[in-house]
């Protein structure tokens, strides 16, 4: 009794026209918001923010119930409502089919490199994967489909996973250092270009290096104690550097004789800690032993300025700058936020920061992604912040983290979920036609070989509007990319959709029902507008 009463109430409220108007408008408002989010931040972000999130799902469920109630309300079957029934049945079926697709469908990509077989589908889901050096096993953890930073608070074998950053951008952070190495940040600019870069000598700063090439210009970052020797005008143009004592000198300082071999190559012998160290400065900065083997362990190094005179080289020492110009080595000092003109193409260099007690690292910073011309141009990096033995690490989808334990290691990587197929693809050929006289692709086509256990191998031709159907999956030509050796790789989108027949049936009934409802039932029209006088 009670249930029947409640049901009637639900039927009358949820199944009413007014409720239909409300729920349709709410659904519409969410969609409008979704399209704007899509245009600013990209399709995936909009999916994660709106379309595939529970509020939107709930709205669709409520719509489903409302349609169902509206249909039940018009039971028992009456002829004038046949169009109405089929139209709403079509809608219910389409909803159901879409739900089945959402729940159990598969939608991913197969990336094919020429000549390399592939059998895995890359799915949109992000995962953390742990590999242990001591075990064969690996551990996999799914990450949530979120649009903004999400607290994880998961601990596994001493690794605390703190935050998941679905969209991030690397920023340089400066970390206090126990060692005493120089790191600095500069901008090199002229009227045409400006480039900011950070260089370091610190072994802790793994994200940065001590050299950089910008077109024809090479930049070298050296300890600041070396600069006074650069400033010295000597005939040999050699600098000797002792890594242990952190000081430098020139052969002329100690009257070390520079000899020449019979072939005219310079060499010199330096007494050091009671031993003799030999250098061929024009070939190697390291000393050689009597068998001419390079001695990298030796703290002494030699540096020939001559090598750097033929092409543009810029030497930076934190607050010091040296370069070769007009047959002269120029050494200058630079203060923070000061600029210095360089002799090449109107370039000038600006120092922003020079540190010895801090070292730089790249740290992912959460941002909103930015879409331009349907491509994500900013924020296209996933990252997970984790803590291990009191230190903070960031693993990104482009860079795994190796954590050292007492005598083995754990590799933490962030990757896409993969689905292994029971068959294998081999890209045998990729063809791209262009519009005559242009580089615009007119069509792209993949020729693949499909190996499946019992059927053997078969050749297929996949191109736009001509997918390959196999074992319930459909493979479509999605895109392509250039490989390193100027060949082409192909990306197929792989799709398994168990809801497809229901959606199609629903759509068909929906259209026929709509026509029936609006075009054949003529009586309703008379009552639709109030009668005129």
């Amino acid at each position: 009794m009670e249930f029947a009463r409640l049901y009637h109430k639900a039927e009358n409220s949820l199944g009413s026209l007014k409720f239909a108007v409300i729920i349709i408008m709410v659904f519409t408002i969410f969609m409008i918001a979704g399209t704007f989010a899509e245009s600013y931040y990209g399709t995936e972000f909009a999916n994660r923010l709106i379309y595939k999130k529970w509020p939107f799902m709930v709205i669709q469920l409520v719509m489903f119930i409302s349609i169902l109630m509206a249909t039940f309300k018009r039971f028992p079957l009456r002829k004038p409502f046949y169009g109405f029934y089929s139209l709403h049945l079509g809608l219910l079926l389409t909803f159901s089919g879409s739900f089945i697709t959402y729940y159990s469908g598969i939608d991913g990509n197969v990336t094919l490199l020429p000549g390399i077989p592939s059998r895995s589908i890359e799915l949109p889901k992000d995962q953390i994967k742990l590999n242990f050096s001591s075990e064969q096993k690996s551990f996999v953890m799914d990450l949530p489909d979120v649009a903004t930073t999400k607290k994880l608070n998961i601990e596994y074998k001493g690794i605390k996973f703190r935050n998941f950053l679905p969209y991030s951008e690397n920023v340089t952070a400066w970390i206090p250092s126990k060692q005493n190495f120089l790191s600095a940040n500069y901008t090199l600019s002229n009227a045409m270009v400006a480039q900011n870069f950070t260089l370091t000598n610190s072994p802790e700063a793994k994200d940065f290096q001590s050299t950089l090439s910008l077109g024809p210009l090479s930049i070298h970052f050296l300890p600041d104690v070396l600069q006074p020797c650069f400033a010295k005008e000597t005939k040999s143009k050699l600098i000797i550097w002792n890594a242990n004592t952190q000081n430098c000198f020139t052969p002329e300082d100690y009257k070390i004789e520079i000899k020449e071999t019979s072939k005219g190559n310079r060499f010199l012998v330096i007494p050091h800690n009671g031993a003799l160290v030999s250098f061929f400065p024009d070939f190697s900065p390291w000393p050689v032993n009597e068998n001419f083997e390079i001695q990298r362990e030796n703290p002494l190094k030699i540096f020939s300025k001559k090598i750097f005179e033929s092409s543009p080289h810029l030497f930076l020492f934190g607050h010091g700058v040296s370069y070769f110009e007009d047959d002269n080595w120029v050494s200058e000092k630079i203060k923070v936020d000061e600029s210095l003109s360089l002799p090449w193409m109107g370039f000038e260099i600006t120092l922003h920061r020079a540190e010895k007690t801090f070292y730089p690292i790249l740290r992912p910073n959460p941002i909103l992604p930015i879409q331009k011309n349907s491509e994500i141009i900013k924020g296209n990096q996933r990252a997970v912040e984790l803590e291990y033995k009191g230190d903070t690490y960031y693993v990104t989808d482009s860079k795994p983290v190796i954590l050292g334990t007492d005598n083995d290691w754990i590799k933490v990587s962030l990757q896409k979920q993969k689905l292994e197929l029971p068959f294998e693809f081999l890209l045998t050929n990729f063809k791209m036609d262009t519009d005559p006289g242009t580089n615009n692709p007119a069509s792209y086509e993949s020729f693949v070989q499909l190996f499946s256990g019992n059927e053997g191998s078969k050749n297929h031709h996949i191109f736009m509007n001509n997918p390959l159907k196999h074992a319930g999956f459909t493979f479509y030509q999605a895109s392509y990319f250039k490989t390193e050796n100027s060949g082409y790789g192909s990306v197929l989108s792989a799709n398994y959709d168990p809801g497809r027949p229901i959606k199609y049936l629903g759509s068909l009934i929906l259209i026929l029902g709509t026509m029936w409802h609006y075009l054949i039932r003529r009586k309703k029209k008379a009552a639709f507008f109030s009668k005129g006088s």
Partner: protein
Amino acid sequence: MKILVLIFCLFSSVSAYANPCAPNIGKLPVLEKGRIKPLNVLSEETFQFLNRKFSIKDKTLSQTYCLFALKNTLGETNLKLRAVIENQKVRAFLNANEDTHYEELGPRLKDINREIMLQKDESAYKRSLEELRKKITVYTKMVTGAAWTIARVKDQKVSWVPIADFVLSPDGRSFIEMSNKEAINFINTNVKMIQEIEGNQFRVEHIFRNLRLHKWSLYINLLAFAILFVTKRFPIVLGLSFLSVLAQTLLIILRVYVSGRAPITNMYETVMFSGYGALVISLIVGHFTKEKLYVYVGLFYNLLTLMMMNFATGMLSDTISPLVPVLRDNFWLSTHVTTIIMSYGALALSWILANYLIIKTRFSTVDKAKAKYVNTLIYNCLKFGVILLAAGIILGGVWADYSWGRFWGWDPKETWSLIVLCIYMAILHGKGTSWITDNIFSHLVSLAFLSVMMAWFGVNYILASGLHSYGFSQGGAVFLGSFFAIQILILVLTYKKDAYIR
């Protein structure tokens, strides 16, 4: 914008000289942007972009283009084209004035490039600089003879040679020295030869371009409305409507023949097709229901679309260019897009009827019966509109599923078409409740059409541009903004306790 007059010197010397730029040169086939087209199309598109006011007396645009392309070879160093720079800041930056021509700007490309690079944020200034850079490049390609390719035949195979290279060959040197009369023969022979190998589409396009059917259709429609207002003679209006349909049918047939695909692949074509379809359907429906109002409304909507095609050339480009691979499926393209466009046409008719009713109710008198009658007409349009739209959305889903395995992907274009359907469904559901009375029904219908405009134009001109650019067509955003403003203004002005019903 100031009227920019031509800079043109010593015209007499041009014609006196040995001159291969013959009057029929517009016929010559050209391979440009992946398509074979006649030179007159390339010329018109080029000058449309560079300086649409430019012309040389007694010369066609194709001849003018020819003179520019052969400028250096023919020694026509006085031939100059004035640059169109509308942005004041860009003018100031370049020290440009009324008489600055592209020739002077060429060497300043470097400065412009640098200035663009220095602009960190998107701005009207940066966009104008980029536009100018594009124009200078197009101009340079024209005068260096790089853009115009000429067809050479060897062993029944056509190769396309830039005119700059052609004039260095023996054939090219003799072409340069031809008189107008000899050149006419040369051009006709070349056209005939290429036509045999590559088909006659470019010949048809040449004629099609010169016919200017969109202009004629516009004149016919304007004449029809003039007659309607002056004499109120329906038979004449009907006759002119048929004539307009005839002209537009020819326009569409020729365009389909030239492009080899359904005439619904870009904004220009969808506007053209929806106007055409709406007029045809309203003539048919008007005939069977014996209702003149359908014809007037159809003709009025057709007039609006023709005006857009004729005057909104910055937003709607009539250039025929090759399609992206995924759209190269005539079956799906025709069924899906046609259905959607027809539904937009039907909804547009409901929009015009609704505005007619609300304006008439506010500023004139409408009796209950008439209001009810017009509302019924609006309802009929809505019915067809929603059926076609629902079918079109589903066809789009099936095509997407067939082409890349996704029935629905929340892509902005498809989502907005669903939004349109939902908004109209909300109105149709609401009409059955006490919320939407006969009084506000037409107001809501006229407002709902804004969603169609958003789905049709807004997705491309506002959403597609994203957050950090001004979009590829600023004209589109302005057009849409004005449209929204005018519709809302109409609703505000007509907001009054309505004269009928209560």
